[in-house]
């Protein structure tokens, strides 16, 4: 497994940006590294909104925020020396999206960590990088922890958890 082939999973959080900076620091000037920015789209649940219009608006806002973050992350990595030919992006849209957008694959919303693990396997990456929120044990129990699940589930790859 080539540990220089990095899968960098991000959402639009500060923790994700710290992970981006860390990868930029490590891989920016070094030869042989490639980085794929991965964003598993998480749109707000339809059930949380009184009507379709309000839901679509919220989904649009979330998507815009995620896309903007991806652009920012890409620019950041390039600025730190990762050349564009070593940088790819994967934005996995939500299967429950209200927008009509047929595609080969979409996120089923079965758990962010699981979908990152699927992408890790499918792409043959040697390293996966995630940011860590730093939640309490109680919060982890109730709301889950993507980084913890990845730590416990990954085999044959390196895991970088950036706190």
């Amino acid at each position, binding site marked *: 497994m080539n540990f220089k082939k990095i899968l960098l999973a991000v959402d639009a959080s500060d923790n994700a940006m710290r992970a981006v900076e860390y990868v930029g620091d490590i891989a920016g000037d070094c030869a042989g590294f490639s980085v794929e920015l991965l964003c598993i789209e*998480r749109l*707000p*649940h*339809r*059930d*949380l909104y*009184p009507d379709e219009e309000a839901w679509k608006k919220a989904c649009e806002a979330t998507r815009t925020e995620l896309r903007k973050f991806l652009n920012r992350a890409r620019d950041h990595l390039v600025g730190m020396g990762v050349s564009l030919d070593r940088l790819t992006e994967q934005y996995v849209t939500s299967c429950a999206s209200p927008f009509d957008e047929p595609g080969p694959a979409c996120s*089923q*919303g*079965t*758990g*962010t*960590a699981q979908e990152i693990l699927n992408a890790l396997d499918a792409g043959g990456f040697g390293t996966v990088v995630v940011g860590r929120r730093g939640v309490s*044990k*109680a*919060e*982890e*129990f*109730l*709301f*889950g*922890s*993507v980084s913890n*699940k990845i730590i416990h589930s990954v085999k044959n790859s390196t895991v970088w958890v950036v706190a």
Partner: protein
Amino acid sequence: MDFDLREFVHRHQPNFPIRRIGRLVTDTTDFTSIGYGDVIRLGDVHYLVLRDEAERRFSIEDFKFWVKRCTTLETRQPAILKLVFHEEFTQRIGPLSIRSFRSETKEARILDLVRDDPRFMQGFSLRDEAGNLVRVLDIIRGKRLDMAIYNLPGTHREYFDTDLYAMLVRFISACEAIKFLHDNGERHGDVRRDHLWLESGTGTARWIDFDYAYEAHANPYALDLFGLGNVLLFITGKQIFTPREFAHMDGADRIVEDDHSLIFRNRLVNLRRLFPYIPEELNRVLMHFAAGSEVFYETVDEFLTDLRPCLDLVPQPKEEA
């Protein structure tokens, strides 16, 4: 021809006092104004409102003004109408808060999914003339599972020897029902012991109230699992044990911080401290919800895989001669 509401109600409910017959309601948006004697029309069916439903929690009657206990005039069958109340609120679970929503569409969708499945309350949804999605629910004849257990006479040991097995059988079936929801991409959303009812006659445990929705991406089913853990704790203990209950019991002096619930820090989870005859395997399932736990269940399958074998370790009811 004008519709004569008084005549209509009187024809179907001759014993209902005529002077208490109210208005005909076809738009339920202003649900607080709908009260005793009003008639809600949905499609071609008329529901005579008798009262607001109430939930009893912590000894306080909590009225749900959007939930109406009714009689269906055409059939004389009782029904519960849940009107649209799309509130956003914060659920407090121990020290944590969760932004939650009440969603009529979620509940209506689940009612369709679980149609004719006796492990769930039954009903259907209809839109009123203003487009509000109203849920029409059958009434479950029975009692809350926790009250049924709590009211059983005798000591914990007697309960353990005679009743726990049957309760666990019902609970496992109820867990399988939640798994069915998860397998279909749905969450119950409010798994609590007072939302599991034991039906009279059949003894089936049935889930009620599916209208809570919330955001949960990293571990979508964790809240339901947390609820199942709490219900199992009650079923195993015959009640919840806090320091007030266990302070003077044998074994209380050995209780440590890690024996309590991870979320509700005053609830004892390690019940074997008080009741050493509880099988270790069953206690171990409970301990996944304890403060000292490092491993949590992520799916109902994992939970059931550990729980099912415990049935063989609990005294089984003797066959009658």
